[in-house]
Each structure stands twice: as C-alpha cells, then as structure tokens.
C-alpha cells in the first residue's frame, strides 16, 4: 500500500518532469532564435507571411476582356457570382453587373479554370480588413459599393457615379466615398483589386458622354489657366506702363 502511494507520487513527478522538459526546450529555442526564431505564430501586420506557390486569394476580373459568357457562374459550386448582361447596340453584350459575393466564395479556383478568355484570376491578395471604419463592409471594399447598393442592379447612371467615385477628384464624391477611397489607396498599395468597375461597365454612349464631360472640363481648366496667365502678364506689364508714364 505504501509502495503504491510512493509509486503514484513518482509517476506524477515524472509526468510533470516530462512536461516541464518539453516547455524548457521551447524556452531554449526562444533564447537561441534571437527571441522570435522558434515561434510558431507570425508577427502578422509587421511581417507578411510568405504565400505558397499557387496561392488562391481574392478574385479579380479584367472586365475589359470579359465577354459575359457566365462560364464562371456555371462552374461555381456555391453560386457566388451575380452577373447581369444587356444587349447594347443591338448585338453586342454589355456587362451591367459583375458581383462576386466574397462572403460565400470558398476560393476553390474552379471559375478561373472555366474562364475561356483568361480574364478571371485569383490574385495573391488575402486581406479584406480596411484601415478605416467606413470600409468595414467587405464587399464594398472590394467592389466599391455601399451597403445599400450591394445585391442590387445598378443602372448606368449609378454605375457612372461609382466610376466617378473611383476617379476620386471628380465631382459628386461624398466624404464617405473619399475616405473609403483613401483607405483603399493606403491599403492595397497599388495592387488593384477593383478593376471590375472599369470602363467596361459603360455603354459606348455613356463612355463617349463621360469623355465629352472630361474634355469639357479639361477645356474649362485650360481656359481658366489661360485667363490666369493673361492676368499675370497684364500685372507684369502694368508697372512697366506706369514707369513709362512717369
């Protein structure tokens, strides 16, 4: 009986010693690996993880090349695509909506294989978290839609407005939108996820109209500049004229 009593204690001490030895090994690794060498976690925001080859991140669709064939939507096992197309100019297919619900997406990459025109890609970007409170809506971050615009078909005018929002300096951008865009610029550092609302969303008429507006604005700017230059020139001439008079 007393031997059992001792045996249990010896077993307990041995078990404790095994555990303590294991964690002491971790501490030794920690000391050797300059403090962080043995860590199994990563210091994420400071140090970005090295992604494996063929990493599948967020989807990106080059809308310029996209024909709206909906192969991706058919290949998708969980239906996260919402694509709507319209006929414009009678025969040409115009994509008026191309949304990917990233909260559904399982990043399987089947859509990428299905795409016949090689315009849908999985990027290596994995970050959805924004840098300001306005962008906390993930889908909005990716597709530049406000929560009230998500899941609804946008008409051409709204689309144009959104596009102007991406131009950032254009008129009609609310403070929210500007903050949001600033956040995007800050966050993605040039890795553009959002090519989706590129020029492809415009009907050709809309495109020409926007171009006309831009040209008009450019002309106005140039006119203003010219006026300013003239005013400066006059101001420079004026002292000379006075000097001549006296």
């Amino acid at each position: 009986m007393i031997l059992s009593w001792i045996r249990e204690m010896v077993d307990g001490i041995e078990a404790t010693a095994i555990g303590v030895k294991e964690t002491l090994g971790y501490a030794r690794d920690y000391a050797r690996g300059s403090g962080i060498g043995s860590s199994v976690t990563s210091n994420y925001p400071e140090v970005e993880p090295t992604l494996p080859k063929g990493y599948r991140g967020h989807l990106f669709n080059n809308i310029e090349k996209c024909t709206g064939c909906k192969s991706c939507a058919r290949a998708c096992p969980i239906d996260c695509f919402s694509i709507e197309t319209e006929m414009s100019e009678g025969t040409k297919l115009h994509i008026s909506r191309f949304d990917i619900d990233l909260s559904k997406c399982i990043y399987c990459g089947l859509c990428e294989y299905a795409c016949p025109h090689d315009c849908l890609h999985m990027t290596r970007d994995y970050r959805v978290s924004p840098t300001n409170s306005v962008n906390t809506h993930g889908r909005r971050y990716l597709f530049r839609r406000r929560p009230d615009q998500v899941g609804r078909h946008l008409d051409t005018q709204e689309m144009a407005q959104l596009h102007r929002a991406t131009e950032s300096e254009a008129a009609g951008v609310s403070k929210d939108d500007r903050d949001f865009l600033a956040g995007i610029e800050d966050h993605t550092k040039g890795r553009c996820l959002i090519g989706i609302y590129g020029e492809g969303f415009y009907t050709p008429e809309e495109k020409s109209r926007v171009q006309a507006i831009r040209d008009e604005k450019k002309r106005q700017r140039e006119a203003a500049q010219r006026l300013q230059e003239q005013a400066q020139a006059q101001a420079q001439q004026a002292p000379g004229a006075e000097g001549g008079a006296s």
Partner: protein
Amino acid sequence: MAHGLVSLSGMPVLTAEIIALLLLLLIPFGVSFALAGIAQYFERKVSAVVGRRYGPTTASFDILVKVCIDMPLFFLPEATRRKLQRVVSVLPVIKQVLYYSKRWGMGQMIADGVKMFTKEDILPSSADAFLFRGSTYIVLLACFVALASMPISQNFYMTDFSVAATFTTAVTGLSVVGLLVAGWGSNNKFSLLGGIRAVAQIVSYEIPVGLAIAAVAMWSGTLSLQGMIAAQYHPGVFSFLGWNLFQSPFFLILSVIYYTAAMAECNRTPFDLAESESELVAGYGTEFSGLRWGLFFIGEYTDMILVGGIFAALFLGGYQSPVGEQWIVALPAFWEAVVHGCIFLVKFVLSIAVMMWLRWTLPRFRIDQVMRLAWVRLIPLALGCLFFLALSMLWFGENGVVTVRHGRFLSSPVVRAAWWQIVVIWVAVAAVVALLVALAKKYGEPRPMPRAVHDQLVGGEP
C-alpha cells in the same frame, strides 16, 4: 494632550496624522499595483515563450513621453507639444528605451492597467452590494498587509517581529473570507461554487504550508523571517551551503511541498479550480468587472510575489548571496541594502518565473485530484519530513549552538550540525528514497481510476 491638539499649520494633530497615514497607505498600494503590472507583463511573456508565441510586441513606452510632455506643458499649443515629443523621442537614451520597449511590448503593462481602470464597474441588481463591494477590499487588504514583513534586506524592510512567518500565513489566509464573501455576495451559482472551491482548496493547502514553515522555524529556532534568514548565514566563500535547502534533505522535500502548496494557495493554474474559465466561467469573479475584477487580479499577483519572497526567505537564504556574505555585510548600509535587495529580487523573480512556467505547462487538475494531493500526499509527506527533521536535530545535539549570527542576536539558539553529520543524512536519505522508488516502481501499483471518473472520461456519457 499636553503637547496640544493644534499644530503650527493650524491643522489638528489628529487630522494631520490621519492624512499622513492615508498618504503612507498609498505607498504599498502603488508598489503592489506596479509589481502586479510588471508580474502580469512577465507572465504574458513567459506564456508566450512556453506556448511558442510572440507575446506582446506592439505597445511601447511612448505614452509615457506623451504624458510627461503634455501634462506639465499643457499651456503650450498642441503643435509645439507634438514637435517637442518628436524631439524628445529621438534623444539617444530615450530612443533606445522606446525601441526596446516597443520590441518587447513593455507598454502593455501600462495599457492593461489603463484598460482595467477605465472599464465600467457593474453591480448586478440581485447582488448584495455591501458584500459584493467589501469582498474586493478584504482580498486586497490580506495581500497588502502580508507584504509588510517581506525581508528585502538586512536593514531594509517594513517590519519584522517575532512571529512574522505566522503572521504572514494568517493574514494571507484572510483572503479566504474575501473570496467566499465575493461568491456569496454575487448571488450567482457559479460565483458561489467558485468561492466554495477556493475556500476548500486554500484551507486544505494552508496545512502543508504551515508544516513547512514549522519545520524551518524548528530548525532556526525563531518565527521571525529576518531571524530565519540570519540563521542561514554561513561564513566563508561557499555561503550557499548554509541555506536550508542544502542543510538537510528534508528541507529539499519540504521546499517542494511548500512551493506546490503555496501555488495552490495562490489559485494558480494547475490548481485554479476556483476560477476555472472552462467550467465556472471565472468562479468567484464571474460578476466582477473593471477595477473590481482587477483588484482580485492584483491580489493574486501580490500573493504570488509574497510566496516567492517567503520561499526565498525560508529555503534559499533570503537576501544572502551564494558566494560569500562577509563582503556584502562589510559594505556601507545603503549599498548593503542595494546589493541584498538585488539578490533577493533575483531569487524571487526566479521562483515566480518557475511558478509561471509550471502554470503554462501543466493542465488543470480535477477537484478530487487537488484535494487528494493535499490530504493524501502533501500533508503526510510534510509530517514525515517534520518528524525525521526533528529526529536528526536530536542527533545533532547541542554541538553547534550559536546565538549570534550575521551581527544579529537570535532570540533562541540555532542547532547547527557538523558537516559530516549533514553529509551522512543526505546520503542516508538519498539511499532510502532511491530504494523506495525502485521498490515502488517494481511492486507498487498505481491506484485505479475511480469508476465514476473512468466512465465519464472513457466510456460513459459525457
């Protein structure tokens, strides 16, 4: 009343005394808060090392720079203050401090403190407000008062009296009342269960702690902590041989017993049944939030620091250096206090580090295992050690009686054995223990798991 009740400043002496007392009270509070903050940061780092993580890496001391410039120079415009901060934070030393504090995340201790202080204090509507609020103060008071007899150095300590060791255990035991009151006052079944568990556990583990202290008191002939340390004085270079840990093999066993039992008394993880998060939410602290919860937390860490200090004093020679004590004693009083204080700090930091290491290594015991460990293992073992220690002291006789140690008169003579007697006892005990362990490994059979537990863990319903 002969000296009059009115002082020069026109303030009644009694009032002045009370104010002075209250101000003095702030010192242990501040010290404990700071110690608890540092211990908590230390614990996070230890847990990170053991768990192969990073621990805090982001918060730095730059908040201190901000506060130190913003508060005294509040009258300057903000832009100037920002510029000043930028200038200050690139000064050579401050830059290094900020860099390393950021790298090691040392600002976390300030951040955690601020978080705790600014959280809302919630009083449950069904709770007994008086008991609910009072319990935190009882726990805190128990820990703070026990710090009073911490023997930091030969001449630097708050108080030392003839029963300091008993006093410390008695006052620490008071926290039982606080925990039970907290559980009862919360009017919540988990809190009450946690409180009852805490009481059962702490009361059980006070016995092995008391037995270990009794053994040391018997050996040194005093209950004063300073006296116990003085009794471990050993002249010459190898002064660590005088420490209780090396004086007798029974003290080695007793130190393990004391350490385990004290860890259980602090409610730390292998024994944290009282506040087991996964079963009882947080035990007696379920209903507490913000600073009130923080006070329990501070109490726990202060308790830990206390245990580290007492452990060092009882078994590791307190503030004494392991390589020759006579040089340090010869120093001027101030430097003596500094050197002794540093040695004491190293000892108790080590013992706290081991406590944290064990916490993050071992899983939590079941309640029956915890109770069995106290009553079936530690208490008989401690009693046996006490008995054999007394026997060995009888054998030593009166041949090494000393009354003056370390320049300090001991209240009673110390029994000190000849070196060959100590060696004989070490060898004999080692041989007996080795024999018993070998026999136990061969013939002893571990007790089978209780049927109910087995069913629950292996076969039966979850």
